[in-house]
């Protein structure tokens, strides 16, 4: 079962520009997380936002959460070529187990 869906599927920008990725989900959640995956590697946790939070920052990352719309966005400011990767949102299910359900990801390419 796919809980989160990222949009767009692919995004290509120039270095220095901002990159925005969106995630929509279907059921009520406790938390939403964003992960990054470099090509052919494992996923790395970036940031977690709880259902009672609306915005969270970590370095050049800004995450927002709108539980009324069941959506989240990840903003990467002043992007660098090294930000080139796939980005996934992951949600738990409110009242459910500790399994996370991942979306299909947004593939970000930052051109130097």
């Amino acid at each position: 079962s796919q809980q989160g869906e990222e949009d767009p599927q692919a995004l290509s920008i120039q270095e220095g520009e901002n990159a925005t990725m969106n995630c929509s989900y279907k059921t009520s959640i406790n938390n939403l997380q964003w992960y990054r995956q470099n090509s052919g590697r494992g996923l790395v946790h970036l940031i977690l936002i709880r259902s009672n939070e609306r915005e969270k920052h970590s370095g050049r990352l800004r995450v927002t959460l709108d539980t009324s719309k069941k959506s989240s966005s990840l903003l990467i400011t002043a992007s660098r070529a090294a930000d080139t990767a796939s980005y996934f949102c992951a949600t738990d299910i409110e009242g459910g187990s500790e399994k996370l359900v991942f979306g299909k990801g947004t593939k970000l390419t930052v051109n130097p």
Partner: protein
Amino acid sequence: DVKVTQSSRYLVKRTGEKVFLECVQDMDHENMFWYRQDPGLGLRLIYFSYDVKMKEKGDIPEGYSVSREKKERFSLILESASTNQTSMYLCASSQMGGYTIYFGEGSWLTVV
């Protein structure tokens, strides 16, 4: 740092072979996961274990089994490999109630 180690990075197996994918984590995490990642389908959960000898089926358990005899080790077993099981397999672990999942580097399995 949390380390999740997958024993094989690349494997090539023949149809009908029994395949073992091994995963070890060094942070005393209660939860361990096996995901499968395919282009266009994102990450799909195969099995989840929340304690030694305890397991739950994920979204796509058919054709797979798991073993967790020790807390730090979680094995994925393909009883009779088929070509449609050619994929990247990702192992992960997390603390009980910890939310963040830590991934291994992935195992690329090709079944010929």
